[in-house]
């Protein structure tokens, strides 16, 4: 179970690191190497994004990665093959992140059971509110996978409680309004928001959107359980190559 893995891990570390990458960008082979590098650098869990042509919630960097992956021929089948391979090779939990149409076209129960078969621990589907997700949540429960739900700064207390009822593994708290990749103000206000998130769920909480350096991770320590690094790793790799990702991760903590 994802949650207990995280709880155990949190006994040893003040804060965990989750990184993100787009499968097939720059290529499927490179994706494998990036994952390998990151695992070696000590990330605690990873979200693997299956590219989609309309990634509405993503900012320019991840959007571009999605598009390039698709242009180079990335398919859902290849994504699952890669997922299977990394699960076999590396001893951390992996999550699938993608938009709902990818599941829908695949067949939601079939997609979920495929995740389970490949050893994936859970998934994040940013455009699927629980109200629309009965089929998905049922399938996830059936396969004991963690449905990672999202809290945002516009989410009311009531709704956080409602969402918490569907959440598994941990809760992904979005640091601010906007899409991925813009910068975040790590301030008292953010701390207040995090403590509100903390109070509404018993699950560990992750904070993502705009985490990009040690200072940010230090700020989050104690306030959140997981720091999520998304856009910044893509930027590092685009600038300095895959090997640089390892150093980058190591320097965060």
């Amino acid at each position, binding site marked *: 179970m994802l949650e207990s893995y995280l709880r155990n891990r949190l006994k040893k570390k003040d804060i965990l690191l989750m990184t993100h990458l787009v499968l097939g960008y720059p290529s499927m082979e490179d994706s494998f190497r990036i994952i390998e590098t990151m695992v070696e650098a000590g990330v605690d869990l990873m979200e693997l994004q299956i590219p989609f042509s309309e990634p509405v919630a993503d900012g320019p960097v991840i959007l571009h990665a999605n*598009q390039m992956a698709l242009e180079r021929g990335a398919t859902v089948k290849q994504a699952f093959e890669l997922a299977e391979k990394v699960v076999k090779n590396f001893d951390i939990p992996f999550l699938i992140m993608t938009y709902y149409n990818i599941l829908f076209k695949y067949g939601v129960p079939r997609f979920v059971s495929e995740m389970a078969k490949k050893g994936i621990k859970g998934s994040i589907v940013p455009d699927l509110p629980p109200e629309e997700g009965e089929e998905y949540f049922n399938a996830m429960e059936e396969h004991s996978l963690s449905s990672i739900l999202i809290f945002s700064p516009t989410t009311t207390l009531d709704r956080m409680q409602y969402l918490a009822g569907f959440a598994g593994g941990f809760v992904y708290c979005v640091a601010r309004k906007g899409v991925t990749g813009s910068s975040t103000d790590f301030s008292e206000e953010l701390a207040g928001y995090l403590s509100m998130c903390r109070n509404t769920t018993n699950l560990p909480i992750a904070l993502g959107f705009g985490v990009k350096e040690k200072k940010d991770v230090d700020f989050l320590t104690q306030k959140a359980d997981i720091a999520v690094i998304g856009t910044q790793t893509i930027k590092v790799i685009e600038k300095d190559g895959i090997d640089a990702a390892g150093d980058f991760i190591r320097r965060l903590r």
Partner: protein
Amino acid sequence: MVESRYYGQYGGSYLPEILVSTFDQLVTAFKEAKNDPAFWEEYEQIMSSYSCRPTPLTFAGNLTEYFGGARIYIKREDLNHTGAHKANNVMGQGLLVKRMGKKRVIAETGAGQHGVATATMAAKFGFKCTIYMGEVDIARQRPNVFWMERLGAEVVPVTDGTRILKDAINEAFRDWVTNMDDTHYVLGTACGPHPYPEMVSYFQSIIGREAKKQIIKSEGKLPERIYACVGGGSNALGIFSSFLDDSVELVGVEAGGDGLNTGRHAARLASKDGTVGIAQGFKTYFLQNSDGQMQETHSVAAGLDYVGVSPILSLLKEEGRVRFESATDREVLDALSLTLKKEGLVPALESAHAFAQAFKEVPNLSRDDIILINQSGRGDKDIFTIADAFKDPDWQKFIQQKAEEYRA
């Protein structure tokens, strides 16, 4: 709570969490407005004093004679202020924005008509305005970009994806998730998450309400068939909505592009290429591959060059209540040319799809029959595309001279 309304299996509200409360607010505001009789009155008042409603229903005597079939009537949405039915939706949403107390509007645009309409509404209501428009569409609808800017709007070129309408919608959403507090997203067609399909159709229903009264007044009976082009579906739903319970055949005409069997088209419902999917916040027929990735579409008409379609139309197709057809780029240009010469009317390239399909069918109808074509907009904006299609040498010379002047 996400309130999601379905039409059969289509529709819904597939929202990122960050937008849930914004949609809450919008759903509530729209519901209140809809239940407030003064709201529709205010809406009709502004549409008649600022735009030119009711728009006329014109009898096309020459085309009727030319084809020798049914009597052809044309609903003149081209006479709206800014030149298309888009004004109806935009002014309605503008009134809602005022109710919600927001100060800024954003919109996507394909043909540029919705962008111009939104920029116009923003000027009228004193809102700030940003318009997202795909690079490809900017190139083919430049005059509209020029006017949006002159109206005081910022036009942001979208360089991602296929660089057309759907990509502009994505960008608008990206703006919205950042600025929802003071910003309303004026979606331009009957697509997107609830309440957009219902809300846009509601405002556009003014077309059908008028047309029904007008045809009864002119002919004392209902038409046999009604033709409307289908991009997102708003003008079609606008005119169809008042006739759904009548025995009138409703025909939606999609963009056939180079032809349905070439793959280069935008026929989601009229071709076999469309399948059900979920994108841009709602479930409907999309042109997508088996993985669910959206495909490139093609049409000479930027406003029909869209990958999805209104969920309401998807249901009406499933129920067999609306028949869907398509017209190719070539057929559309021919229909446009004929309509210009025979009636002195200049349909937009989008609207000309409805004309093209009607022209295919009208000779086979009886002289006692009546058909109604929705002229959703005027073609002025399409001058570059039409001049190119007809390879007009004088136009090309003129443009080259202009270019010379600018070089100097």
